[in-house]
């Protein structure tokens, strides 16, 4: 069993708190992405799990055994570094073989494993070369191959595909997923790229300012963000947040009355995914002033305002809305997230 339990980890650099009580549980064989803006503490968290950085407080357990006091090599994990850390004085072959050599694997096994990993990442042509002569993307793949070659129980990857072109990235990501799944590797995968996180992950943990704001299935995170930050960070366009008045536990959206959660004040924030709407005639629909209409081919992107607050919505490409129009929208009440205007946290989904 290689489940990972991150238990109230804190990390301060001097007065600066990089991680503020982060707790996460990752099941055996699960693929979890850490998603968050630059500087939110993703690398710091990985380095603490790997044992390269000591936490200020808290515990990390792998397979229910605390590893916080162990040196990195006794933690039984592999890592892909954000800046690759591919050894410049060794050939690509020796780089990929490094972990196996340290385990004193015999030459036959080393050769087999290196060839397997190199094949997966399409780096066989460079096996005899030195990393200095490789492009950034090639070096990055060497770093991934080096980690895969040891067939770790736990794999930490820090933006392992960030330097590849879109096509290769898509291909690599599918192959990675397949390999790791069939090997049952518990994986923590750091990325900036939300489509990557959505596509790959069993669960996504969204981090912000040293805090895990939400962890959950990609669809759950997309549809029901726990905080305003998560809603705004995930999805393109981001979730719309419209502050609306509440009367008698209801919010008026054109002619329709939407039920809000119990015990809210006079105002509430309506979180609306851009595509959770359809065109409706006025005055039944909720009024939106369209400032710019952009036909994107697959859909129509409208930028404008509702209740004088900026919004972006998506309509089918077949609709004919022009810049400057005023339109009515019918909201999909099941896909609305209600958030507190004060804390920015969402209320539990209202059951209709």
């Amino acid at each position: 069993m290689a489940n990972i339990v991150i238990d109230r980890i804190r990390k301060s650099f001097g007065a600066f708190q990089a991680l503020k009580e982060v707790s996460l549980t990752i099941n055996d064989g699960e693929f979890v992405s850490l998603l968050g803006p630059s500087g939110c503490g993703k690398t710091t968290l990985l380095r603490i799990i790997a044992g390269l950085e000591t936490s200020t407080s808290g515990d990390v357990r792998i397979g229910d055994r605390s590893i916080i006091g162990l040196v990195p090599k006794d933690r039984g994990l592999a890592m892909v570094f954000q800046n690759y850390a591919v050894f410049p004085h060794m050939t690509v072959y020796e780089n990929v073989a490094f972990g196996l050599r340290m385990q004193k694997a015999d030459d036959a096994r080393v050769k087999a494993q290196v060839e397997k990993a190199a094949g997966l990442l399409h780096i066989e042509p460079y096996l005899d070369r030195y990393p200095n002569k490789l492009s950034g993307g090639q070096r990055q793949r060497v770093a991934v191959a080096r980690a895969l070659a040891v067939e770790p129980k736990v794999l930490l990857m820090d933006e392992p595909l960030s330097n590849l072109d879109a096509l290769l990235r898509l291909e690599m990501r599918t192959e990675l997923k397949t390999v790791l799944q069939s090997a049952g590797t518990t994986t923590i995968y750091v990325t900036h790229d939300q489509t990557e996180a959505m596509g790959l992950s069993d669960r996504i943990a969204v981090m912000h300012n040293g805090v895990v704001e939400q962890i959950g299935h990609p669809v759950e995170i997309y549809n029901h963000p726990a905080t305003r930050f998560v809603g705004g960070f995930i999805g393109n366009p981001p979730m719309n947040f419209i502050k609306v008045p509440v009367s008698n536990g209801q919010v008026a959206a054109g002619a329709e009355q939407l039920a809000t959660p119990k015990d809210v004040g006079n105002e509430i924030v309506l979180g609306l995914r851009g595509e959770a709407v359809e065109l409706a005639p006025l005055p039944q629909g909720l009024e939106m002033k369209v400032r710019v209409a952009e036909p994107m081919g697959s859909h129509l992107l409208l930028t404008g305002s509702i209740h004088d607050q900026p919004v972006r919505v998506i309509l089918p490409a077949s609709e004919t809305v022009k810049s400057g129009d005023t339109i009515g929208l019918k909201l999909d009440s099941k896909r609305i997230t209600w958030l507190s205007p004060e804390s920015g946290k969402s209320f539990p989904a209202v059951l209709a």
Partner: protein
Amino acid sequence: MTQNRPWIPYLLILPSVAFLALLFVVPLVQTIWLAVSDNGVPSLANAERMVTDINFTRSVKNTFLLTIVVVPVQIAIALAMGTMVAKVGRGRETILWIWTIPLGISDLAAGLVWLSILQNTGYFNSLLFSLGVIGRQASWLSYQTPVALFIAIAVAEIWRGTAIVMVIIVAGLNQVPKEFKEAAEIFGAGPWTRFWRITLPLIRPALQSALILRTVLAFEVFAVVYALGGRNFPVLVGEAYNWQNQNQNYSVAAAYAVLIMIISLAATLIYLKALKVDPERLP
């Protein structure tokens, strides 16, 4: 601007080139000529006189022995110091500063420092006497105790000359990003493996510079030896000095100088070849 006046860079460089030519190249050519000529005609008489002198073999042997013992010890100590100080957070600058103090002491002064420690009435004997190890003054630096004399000279040289090696090695270690060591650590390399397989190969250029510099300086050892052993421990530069000043034979002195130069150049070449730095394998 300089495009219109291409001679400006040359003009600015000229004084330093002229200075070097005057004070370095001219004496060098003169010395070489002095060594390989006799009364204005080319001759190997000086070289012959040099090699047939009774002190020649001893001085060659001593110089090489000293170099072979001192340089590796200095490199090892400097590596140890460098890796230790890399682990230090606060106070690192102060430690480095203290370690480099011997750099500021001239070699003769260093020799005299160790002489005051090791001479018959020196601190070392006083210490041994007060501890009851010796009953009366022991002599360490005489011709009757060649091993002790050699060790004393070697220790003094190591004390004096390790700082420069350390400075070069610390600079080299600073160039190695910590990620390489971290990656090795993750993949199961212990401290020794990391040192031998990651750190050492990556500081190869610094190691090469340190070795060349220290070896060339070791072949030129003189003042420390002179202060501690006088003529009891003949070395190459010491012999050159004696031929020049005692014997007033400038030609044989020049022959020694040329020999030292040849040895130094050969050592440099060997290091450059043996520790070839492949730019392809640098970070």
